[in-house]
């Protein structure tokens, strides 16, 4: 709030910038800050302004308790993305920790303010880049809800299939990286091989492996390609065999169990208070999944279960993801069987681009294309919050529209931001190795966290 808008809170103990650099002058999300104005900032901060009060609060003293300050990150083999945590160590045990984020802040929300809604879709890809399609879908769904549009059934089923596929590949990244941090490097290969195949499928479908930008307001860019069922089935089979091999190596492995069980336990109540969502919350025993609580996209017609853990430790967070992969595989297979024929985008010429033959052949098509591209899809005035169950948790978009084709304001409720806020608290008392594994199990994606 202070960082982006300049709202000052009286009585705040340490009002400092979170996403932007501390040398940054001005408040970017204010309307009087020019979007093209960049600034060059160079100094690193030593975070002692946060660490010192924390130590006094815990009655710790650097000299007396022999504490060593260590920077975990931002360039560290184990930090997933550029994250920095300053820890005060007593031997190997972490007594206090302070995190710094914002290394990947690219001004997504400011960029939204002078782009049309369809132009924002490629930006959403770069939020949670491990499961780009889910961000597309989340954003498009929020806008469609504002406009009162419902996609044709085929479009909805395709969204479900691609959403669950993205969930699978996101979980594969988290699990592979988590196991890699533990030293079990072979799992990285077993879990990433199916990802390669999934990327091949997505690149054949959308043209890009990672940042797909496939969804549009009111539908998607085009229909699925010919032969997609067989290809997708081979991807799913490879995911199954990779997950099976990895589980066989890890599930009953004494070392894996000792490293992950009872490490950074978080109770359900604490998780809810900290604002957690997604697999992290479900691992703590709280059975909350947006696909069940507020079903969208026909999720209530699919036969799948919610995966809930019990103790909220690292083991549960990793195992919940393994099981969710299996549930997603089942959902995709059901969707493949049930998917109807038909259009994939809503047939409204104020929303969907006309066909290329109409654009190049008729004057109305050309005018339609021109208006939609230059002015964007017009969204009625108002404010709306739309959320989906993304791979990391509840991914929400608050959109304030002024009736034109570009939004007045877009705010992303990024699950990783909320999880990272609680990270320094939950690693207190654990060792460095545990802290690294906890970070991996929380699946902090810097793109989503920093926006």
């Amino acid at each position, binding site marked *: 709030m202070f960082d982006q808008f300049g709202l000052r809170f009286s009585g705040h103990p340490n009002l400092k910038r979170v996403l932007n650099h501390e040398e940054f002058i001005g408040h970017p999300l204010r309307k009087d800050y020019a979007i093209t104005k960049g600034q060059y900032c160079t100094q690193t901060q030593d975070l002692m302004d946060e660490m010192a009060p924390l130590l006094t609060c815990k009655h710790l003293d650097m000299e007396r308790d022999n504490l*060593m300050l*260590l920077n975990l990150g931002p360039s*560290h*083999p*184990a930090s997933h993305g550029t994250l920095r945590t300053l820890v005060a160590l007593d*031997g*190997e045990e972490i007594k206090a920790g302070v995190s710094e984020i914002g290394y990947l802040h690219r001004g997504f929300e400011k960029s939204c303010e002078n782009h049309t809604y369809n132009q924002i879709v490629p930006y959403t890809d770069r939020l949670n880049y491990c499961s780009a399609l889910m961000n597309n879908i989340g954003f498009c769904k929020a806008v469609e809800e504002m406009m009162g549009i419902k996609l044709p059934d085929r479009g909805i089923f395709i969204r479900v299939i691609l959403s669950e596929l993205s969930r699978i590949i996101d979980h594969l990244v988290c699990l592979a990286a988590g*196991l*890699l*941090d*533990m*030293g*079990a*490097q*072979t799992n990285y*290969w*077993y879990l990433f*091989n199916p990802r390669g195949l999934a990327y091949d499928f997505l690149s054949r479908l959308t043209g890009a492996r990672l940042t797909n930008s496939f969804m549009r307001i009111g539908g998607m860019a085009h229909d699925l390609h010919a032969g997609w069922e067989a290809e997708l089935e081979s991807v799913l089979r490879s995911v199954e065999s990779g997950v099976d091999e990895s589980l066989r*190596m*890890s599930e009953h*492995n004494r*070392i*894996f169990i*000792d*490293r992950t069980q009872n490490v950074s336990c978080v109770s359900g109540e604490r998780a809810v208070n900290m604002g957690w969502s997604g697999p992290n919350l479900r691992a703590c025993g709280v059975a909350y999944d947006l696909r069940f609580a507020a079903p969208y996209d026909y999720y209530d017609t699919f036969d799948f279960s919610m995966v809930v853990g019990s103790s909220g430790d690292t083991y549960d967070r990793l195992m919940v993801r393994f099981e969710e992969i299996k549930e997603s595989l089942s959902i995709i297979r059901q969707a493949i069987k049930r998917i109807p024929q038909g259009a994939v985008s809503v047939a409204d010429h104020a929303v969907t681009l006309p066909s290329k033959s109409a654009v190049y052949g008729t004057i109305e098509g050309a005018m339609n294309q021109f208006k939609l591209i230059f002015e964007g899809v017009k969204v009625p005035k108002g404010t709306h919050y739309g959320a989906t169950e993304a791979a990391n948790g509840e991914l929400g978009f608050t959109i304030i529209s002024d009736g034109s084709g570009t939004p007045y304001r877009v705010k992303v409720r990024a699950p990783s931001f909320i999880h990272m806020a609680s990270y320094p608290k939950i690693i207190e008392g654990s*060792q*460095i*190795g*545990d802290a*690294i594994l906890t970070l991996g199990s929380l699946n902090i994606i810097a793109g989503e966290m920093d926006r």
Partner: protein
Amino acid sequence: MSTAALIVTLGSVVLAALLALMMIPVLVWLERRIAGLIQDRVGPNRTNIMGFRLGGVIQSFADVIKLVFKEEYYPGHIQTGRALYILAPAITFSAALLAFMTIPFADTLHVSGEALRIQALPVDYGILWYLAIGALGIIGVLFGGWLSHNKYALLGTQRAGSMGLSYELPLGLAVVSMLLTYNTIDFNAMVAWQTQTVLGFLPAWGVVVQPLAFILFSVALFAETNRAPFNVVEGESEIVSGHMTEFSAMKFALYFMGEYIAMNSAAAVIITMFFGGYQLPYLSSAELIESFGTFSLALMVITPLIIYAFIRWMRRNNDVRSTLSHDGGRRFEARVLTIVLLIKLVVLELIFAYFAFAQPSALQTQIAVAVVQIAVFIVKLMLFNIFFIVVRWTLPRFRFDQVQRLGWYYLLPLGLLNIFITAIVIVGVGS
């Protein structure tokens, strides 16, 4: 010294140096290849000298050349103790290399009344030397980590020091129970003891007679050589490279090579004490010398089969997809290696035929037996190195306090228990 003694000693030193130093590229290659095979991929297979890839071994030599020519960078923040900072990796490397020097590669040769050991250091206190000198490697780690003036290095060093210290105890206790069993501290005598049979049909290898000591010893050696799952010292995901963080180029290469030599020595000691060393199972050296004619005949029959299988496997695997226009010289390499192997086969067959049918002198038979035993030793050594490597790429890493708990709470009492049981059994069997 007589000429025989001179030749044998020099030969042993050269053999030990070769086995220790030349094994490093081979071990690096094995590590990467086996890692690749376990991980569903191929491993290094591009580096070549005029088309000769040799399965990827050339990659190791390329690595050596790179490390030698890399820029020697001395970080600016290391102001005190520069000399010791540069010397520290050399200490680890030398300690590891020296520890290998008392391993026997073949049985003692008896030439004109002299007993000539096939050991680089022909001493009879082999195991004590290994324990003492091997433990010195930690000093290099401590110096390097402390003088790096780096918090990650400090953490790594602290872990290395305390871990190395803790696992010396189970290591020593396992050795004590083996000394009780074998009743000697001489590696050669230990190997000779293992030529007996237990229960009439099992070879009296250390692993059969003392399985608990084998487990303790192996786990302790995994920890001493900082191999996974005990590689908390260089736990890449936690403390970057631990004590090796601030070292680059040749300094790092010395640490790196010291680690591989230590792993090699560990494998060598394990096979000497637990797996019959350089002996074939059931056959003691004397029996082998007597029946060497029949043995040669058997080898004459088996060797062509092995080489034929190897040539077929090599030609099948050293190939590329048929759609590629250029195979990078692989078929040429396969052809050349086939010819080389066939020539070797002919030479070997002639040698075996000489030993089988002609009447070789006692000295020639002894030397041939020694060569066979060296070959057996090398095969066992490679198998154990592969075991070390497979364990690394399969298991995750322990956390540091779990490592300590394992060493002090579990392995130490087990070691003591093993000694008691061994002593009771020995007294019981003896009486």
